[in-house]
């Protein structure tokens, strides 16, 4: 790993200033993706701005049917939070299934969402629940946030500060994990809300996380696993790699969607 200038600001304003003043600055949240990426020399930032000293980025609050989670909140803290378990148990369960215990103790929600790994779990919850991503400069609806594989609507130097999740009537996440990494080969988040059903799929699409409007319409009329038809998702839009080919992933989308609906309905 190449050396860099390490900065640990105590406020968001100082973090933004450090980023804008750097030749090629990057943000350090939990580091569980950044460090391996830097070790592999896929990234060699001039400056690393550690968000670990900014108190306002941590914590979980629930008010008026909305769960707001600070960007630096670790996966293990979301998984173990009585507030999250009470309001959106599917979100707590999803967090408890990310990676392994060591990853969950370091990795953060903001880091995961900003990185938008196509096989990460959190993007499915953010999109499936219709969450709002708050940043240093604005609020971004989940539907506008994820723009492609490892791509988001975040501008240069813009930092995720928190994510607000509206409490659904029912929700569940069903994941077919890669048995070694526990990244999603296919993960489907289903949420039933007052304004309809949302279905978000991670791990499968060649453009990152995506919604399935046909499933949403079918489930809004009949919230039952029977409403999920096969052949809705095209293999042409799926990832293909040594773990699973595109046809298999397309098939698994239907399987995991049925499991998620069954879990949410039960």
């Amino acid at each position: 790993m190449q050396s860099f200038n390490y900065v640990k600001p105590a406020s968001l304003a100082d973090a933004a200033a450090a980023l804008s003043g750097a030749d090629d600055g990057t943000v350090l949240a939990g580091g569980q993706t950044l460090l391996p990426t830097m070790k592999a020399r896929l990234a060699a930032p001039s400056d690393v701005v550690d968000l670990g000293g900014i108190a306002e980025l941590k914590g979980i609050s629930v008010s008026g049917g909305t769960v707001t989670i600070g960007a630096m909140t670790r996966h293990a803290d979301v998984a173990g939070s009585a507030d999250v378990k009470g309001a959106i148990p599917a979100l707590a369960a999803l967090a408890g299934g990310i990676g392994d215990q060591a990853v969950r103790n370091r990795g953060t929600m903001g880091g995961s969402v900003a990185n938008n790994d196509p096989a990460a779990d959190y993007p499915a919850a953010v999109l499936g629940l219709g969450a709002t991503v708050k940043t240093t400069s604005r609020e971004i609806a989940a539907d506008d946030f994820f723009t492609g594989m490892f791509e988001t609507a975040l501008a240069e130097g813009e930092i995720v500060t928190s994510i607000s999740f509206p409490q659904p009537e029912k929700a569940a996440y069903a994941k077919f994990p890669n048995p070694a990494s526990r990244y999603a080969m296919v993960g489907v988040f289903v949420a039933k809300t007052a304004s309809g059903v949302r279905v978000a799929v991670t791990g499968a699409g060649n453009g990152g996380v995506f919604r399935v409007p046909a499933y949403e319409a079918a489930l809004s009329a009949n919230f039952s696993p029977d409403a999920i038809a096969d052949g809705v998702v095209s293999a042409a839009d799926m990832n293909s790699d040594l773990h699973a080919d595109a046809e298999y992933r397309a098939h698994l989308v239907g399987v995991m969607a049925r499991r998620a609906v069954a879990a949410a309905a039960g």
Partner: protein
Amino acid sequence: MSKTHVTCTVNGEETEFLCDSNQTVLDVLREDLGLTGSKEGCGSGDCGACSVLVDGRLVCSCLMFGSEAEGTSITTIEGIADGENLHPVQSQFLKHAALQCGFCTPGLIVATKALLDANPSPTDEEARYWLAGNLCRCTGYDKIMNAVHAAAAELRGESA
């Protein structure tokens, strides 16, 4: 690039070090503090051989910068025993021969201690799930699981 001055607690002792920006906690432990019990297996957070506790929580020390250790309390495999007296997790790993080459053992013992601190009576599934980030390429895990459950029983005060 300037070095970062870090003050933290390592195995109960206040410790200061100067680290390069690109040194991980594992690098500092092994190269600067002489604590070579924690191993570097993969260096990418997959194998768990570098497992340590940071403020009581299991982490891969290879995926944390030394600079991030400021103000933390770190426990390594060297801090698990009480002087000459092995921790029950250590003695049960020995008793059950839960190792072959031994490279994964420090990480597994640290991870097992973290498990039993959080959950004194894990089911087999819970224990395997917790230890999923610690890879052993020799044993097949059977003896490791026997040692984990025996250590849990001993720590609960049950006779083996």
